[in-house]
C-alpha cells in the first residue's frame, strides 16, 4: 500500500507540512525524504495518515503501539541506529504537529561525558 504524492491528499499531512514550514522552511528534497518515510510507515501499517492521527489522539494505547511498530520498522529498515532514530523522528514530527504528543529520547551523550 503505497501512496507517494497521494499523501498530500490527507489533511494530517498537509497540516504537518504547513506547520513545519511555518517555522523551518524545509527544502523540496527534505520533504521528499520525509514523505517517503511517512509513506513507508503508513504502508507498513496498512492505514492512512489521517486514521493514524485520529486513532492516536483518541487512544493513548494505540499511539504507544504505533510508536512500537515504528521502532520495529525502522530497526529493520535501517541497520545503523542513528539513521533509524532519525527516521523515527520524521514520524514523531508528523505526530507532534498533529497534536499527538510523543516522547523522544535524545541520542546518548558521548562516552565519558556523564549522564547527560
Amino acid at each position, binding site marked *: 500500500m503505497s501512496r507517494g504524492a497521494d499523501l498530500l491528499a490527507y489533511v494530517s499531512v498537509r497540516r504537518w507540512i504547513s506547520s513545519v514550514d511555518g*517555522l*523551518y522552511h524545509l527544502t523540496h528534497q527534505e520533504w521528499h525524504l520525509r514523505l517517503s518515510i511517512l509513506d513507508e510507515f503508513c504502508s507498513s501499517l496498512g492505514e492512512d495518515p489521517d486514521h493514524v492521527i485520529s486513532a492516536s489522539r483518541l487512544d493513548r494505547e494505540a499511539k504507544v503501539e504505533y510508536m512500537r511498530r515504528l521502532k520495529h520498522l525502522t530497526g529493520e529498515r535501517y541497520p545503523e541506529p542513528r539513521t533509524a532514530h532519525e527516521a523515527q523522528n520524521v514520524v514523531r514530527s508528523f505526530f507532534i504537529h498533529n497534536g499527538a504528543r510523543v516522547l*523522544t529520547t*535524545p541520542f546518548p551523550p*558521548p562516552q565519558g561525558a*556523564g*549522564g*547527560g
Partner: protein
Amino acid sequence: MAVVEQSRPLVGTNFYQVCGKRRSIRWFKTWKPVERERLQRILEVVRVATSSPGNIQPWRAVVVEQSKISPEKRERLLRADNMQGGHAGAPVWIYWFGDLECAQPAAFKQRLRELIRAGAAPTSHGWSDEVAEALIDRGEEAPEGLPELREILHGIPLEASAAVAHAETVGAADIALLAAVNEGLGTCLCMPAAPSRMGVVREELGVPETWVPAWLQLVGYPVEESDAGGQRPKLPFEEIFFEGDARTPFRRQPEVVRELEQAGLLQAPAPTPDRFEELKRLAQLFGYPI
C-alpha cells in the same frame, strides 16, 4: 581537589549585558561539565543578594550534577519531569525549595531580632525586641511607622507560610539565573516535576516535608549561539509599568532606550533570522524531531 586561582580577580559582564543576555537556554553542551567554583559563585550571589521580608531567607537549593548520579536516579528524576528535553541535556540541575518553617512567626521574629542587632531595622523607625514580640507573638496592633505584622504573621496557617516561602524562593531563583549568566553559562527555570510526581523528587533528594518546591534551574554551557535566537517576546513597557496610578503608563524616554540598546540590555528580538535553521541543526545533533 580543584583549587581556585587566587591571583586573578573575578570579572563579570556588566550588569546591563547580563540582564540583556538572560533568556531561557534549553540546549546545552552535554559533554562539558560546569566547574564547581562557578556553581558555588551562583549560590554565593543568591545568599547575599536576594531580599526577603524580615530577612527570612527561606530558599534552599539541592545541586545535582548529572555525571555524579547513577543512571537509575537520573532516569527517575527525568521521568518525574516528563523527560523534558532541556532537563535531559543540562549537566547541572539546581532544585530550588522554600522552607516554610522560615516563614513561621517564630523564625520571622528571630530574623527580625538579628536585623535589629545588625542595625538594619532601626529603633528610630520603632523597632525593638519588645515590639517584635508584641506584634508577632501577642498579635498586638502595630504602632504608626511599622508594618501591621499582626495581620500577616500572628497565628498564620501553614499554607500561608508555604506560599510566602515559595514566593520568596522564586525571587532567589531569578537572582540565580542572572548569576549563572554572569558566569557565561546557559540557564533556565522549569518545573522540578509534574505535581503528582513531586514525591519522587523528594525521595531521591531527601527533601524534608517542610520544603516547598519552587523551581528547577538548569545550568550548563549553551550549545546555542550566544544570542540564543534573540530576546524573547516581552509585553510593551507602557502596558506593564505605570506612574502615579494604575491608569497612567510610565513615560518611556527614547533616549534611555537608545542608551540601553548600546549597553546591551535591549537586544534584537526573537526570532533572529537564522534561529530556525539553528534549531533544526540542534535537533539533528541531539536526535530530536522538528
